[in-house]
């Protein structure tokens, strides 16, 4: 079996895969919700858009729930620090995530225009808020977050909600909204029909270059304007998970070290930009499926770019850099990591198989005739 150091690396990679899973799978639901007011004008168009994700959003959302559970199990102190530190932001995400299922379920139950307009607005908010906040949270992680530990590892956080909304973090938030909007637009091009598809394709052509622009600006900002973190002393890579045992300094440009030391890591940002650029071209060539895959790869590239930049850090502390959480000192015990790896290796392929089967069964696009013919049973 793998030793503790390898296990931590594996779980770092798995965390990345889970975050990508959330962004790619739940991401297009959020994107469709954000796009709802722009791509669909009449009630039947709205229902076409909503029903493209109607049968699958519940399964997609489990990626997020699994993400929470897996961070809890594999990186408990990271889970504890991030979720309590970003307390009010997490509450906003929660409110949006509670609103969304309810809006899906309740919207079309009554044939009342105002009732439906209210739930449409709720859907838009429930897509935009998590997309924005997840990006803002990533931005703050890159900047460092104001927390410290006492010697019993009780965490104190010295920031507030407004502090999270700084310019760089908002830029990250926009990158997130941009990429999920593009992804949602590609999905609509694939699964919707009629004018909804055309409007979605127009938006995709806009969203792709904007996201490239925002992503590049964020990259330059990190290179020139963000002080990164560097490990100056790490007792052992397989030692007990205690974040107070190491030494850390802050250095300008430290977040680029990994790209210099391991040039292959440049594949992540390059893939992100190339795929963002290629996606609308594929859509224009009527390969909506490939365009959707391209935006999925682009999302993976963007998330990997952030993760690789800050490696081995996972949550740097701006207040007490020594308390920063890294791959080497924030994990569960070796036994827990092994058990969880075993369970993941067994179940994740099964999940992917049956999810693929469900998508195959539901492969047909949603048409106006289909919505009108099933007016009572659809969302």
């Amino acid at each position, binding site marked *: 079996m793998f030793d503790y150091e390898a296990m931590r690396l594996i779980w770092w990679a798995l965390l990345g895969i889970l975050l990508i899973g959330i962004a790619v799978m739940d991401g297009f639901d959020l994107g469709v919700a954000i796009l709802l007011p722009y791509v669909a004008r009449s009630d039947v168009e709205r229902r076409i858009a909503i029903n493209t994700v109607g049968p699958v959003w519940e399964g997609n959302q489990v990626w997020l729930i*699994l993400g929470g559970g897996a961070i809890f199990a594999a990186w408990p102190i990271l889970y*504890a620090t991030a979720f309590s530190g970003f307390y009010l932001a*997490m509450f906003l995400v929660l409110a949006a995530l509670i609103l969304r299922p309810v809006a899906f379920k309740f919207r079309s139950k009554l044939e009342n225009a105002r009732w439906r307009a209210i739930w449409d607005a709720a859907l838009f908010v429930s897509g935009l808020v998590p997309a924005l906040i997840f990006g803002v949270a990533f931005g703050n992680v890159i900047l460092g977050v104001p927390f410290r530990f006492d010697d019993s590892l009780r965490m104190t956080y010295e920031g507030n909600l407004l502090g999270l909304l700084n310019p760089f973090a908002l830029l990250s938030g926009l990158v997130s909204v941009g990429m999920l909007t593009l992804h949602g637009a590609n999905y609509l091009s694939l699964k919707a029909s009629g004018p909804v598809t055309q409007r979605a394709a127009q938006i995709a052509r806009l969203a792709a270059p904007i996201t490239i622009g925002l992503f590049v600006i964020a990259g330059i900002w990190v290179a020139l304007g963000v002080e990164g973190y560097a490990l100056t002393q790490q007792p052992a890579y397989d030692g007990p998970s205690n974040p107070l045992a190491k030494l850390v300094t802050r250095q300008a440009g430290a977040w680029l070290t990994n790209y210099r030391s391991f040039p292959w890591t440049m594949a992540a940002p390059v893939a992100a930009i190339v795929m963002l650029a290629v996606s609308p071209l594929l859509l224009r060539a009527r390969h909506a499926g490939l365009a959707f895959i391209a935006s999925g790869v682009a999302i993976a590239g963007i998330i990997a770019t952030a993760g690789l930049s800050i490696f081995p850090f996972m949550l740097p502390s701006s207040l007490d850099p020594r308390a920063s959480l890294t791959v080497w000192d924030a994990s569960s015990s070796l*036994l827990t990591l092994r058990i969880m790896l075993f*369970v993941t290796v067994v179940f994740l392929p099964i999940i992917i198989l049956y999810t693929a089967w469900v998508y195959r069964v539901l492969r047909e696009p949603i048409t106006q005739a289909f919505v009108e013919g099933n007016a009572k049973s659809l969302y």
Partner: protein
Amino acid sequence: MTSIDVVSLSRMQFGLTALYHFLFVPLTLGLSILLGVMESVYVMTGRAIWKEMTKFWGLLFGINFAMGVATGITMEFQFGMNWAYYSHYVGDIFGAPLAIEGLMAFFLEATFIGLFFFGWDKLSRLQHLCVTWLVALGSNLSALWILIANGWMQYPVGAKFNPDTMRMEVTNFMEVLFNPVAQAKFVHTVSAGYVTGSMFVLAVSAYYLLRGRHLELAKRSMTVAASFGLAAALSVVVLGDESGYTAGENQKMKIAAIEAMWNTEPAPASFTLFGLPDLENRRTDYEVKIPWMLGLIATRSIDKTVPGINELVGRAEQRIRSGLVAYDALEKLRAQPSNAAERTRLDSTAADLGYALLLKKIRPDIANATPDEISRAAWSTVPQVSPLFWSFRIMVGLGFYFIALFALAFVLASKRWLDRYRSFLWLALFSLPLPWIAAELGWVVAEVGRQPWVIEGVLPTFLAVSSLSAANIWTTLIGFVVFYSTLAVVDLYLMVKTVKAGPSTGEPFERPGARLLVADAAE
């Protein structure tokens, strides 16, 4: 140190959101199985009415399911948001079942629920039946994993304190999995869910029979609910007994408090059917006792004693003193991590470390605690007696009532007399809220009875919170109350509308002027 205000607010928020979430969970558990049963009959007999039943109850299932999923996310996020020290301290053990729940259960139910609703025309009969059963399996598996997590909070086996990481770490995962408390809780909780699902079907069907509508569907639904409900009600009571038995082994204090039993009873202990617990004088007045009963429930024997509160407090005091030794060793170990002697001393007493932490509520420098303070800390291990005493008795009373009601329904169904006695139908209709009351009270018994611990014997609740300001928690608490109340109103409104509209027989939809898509055929 954390202020007491933050602790109370965090508890209030967790309690409210958990009780709210638990309004939807039992119905999901029970109704999912009932849908599987109904659709199985449809696939086996090919009779369309059973498909119609599956679709109709599925509609109500869907509304409830969406609320359950939505409010469940709050639960998972809240451990980290409001209970950060808890998440750090026991995440190594507690996080695993939560993550496995996602992998094994949530994906299953959530991926297939879409096909349940939208796959009727896209799947063969058998395929759709499999989808329905997979949703039911997923729901029930999720109950298993969350109760393994909860069982560990009640009876933390297979784990050990690690001074280098300042947290509990898993030593034997099999013990966590096969925790007897978790197993007992699982069967008890899913049985309660089946009772809830059956009562829901029984009551709504009774409503239709009373109104003379959808008779065929209502009678068949009632027959299914009566048989399934009777089995479930028997199991919830008998296996609730099982829960009491393990509480006797591991959580003696909880059972002593449930019983308001201040002094140890000679074996075999008697069960207090009724009494008025007097907390100040630590005695129970006007007791009506059933001889032998408690001994049988709690120890499964007639020769073992069941310890009373006074005796258990004495034991807690011993463990606090032992825990202070562990605490002292831990302090010295932190100053000098290589000290092997202190490490051994900590190892031998670490099981009692949590008891010493109880003193933190009284003074921060617990090493200097006076005998009086140790005694006060020992008395703090007694949970609130009155709410436990009464919640338990009402819950058990309701359990026996369910057996009687479902048995009656079963007899009437087998004689085909379901629509014969209107008084029975009214009784069934008015019994609708009772399983929810019993389930929520069961939650109160289990979790209030766990106090003052968040992890029994390991971590006191007041130490488990996040370092948040009270203002922050007030904000979210008020947010949850307002938001959840609004949703409850909307949810109930839609449930009632859907029930009143009834199942769709043929095409009665396109009635002019109908505000609801599925028109109310009766009005």
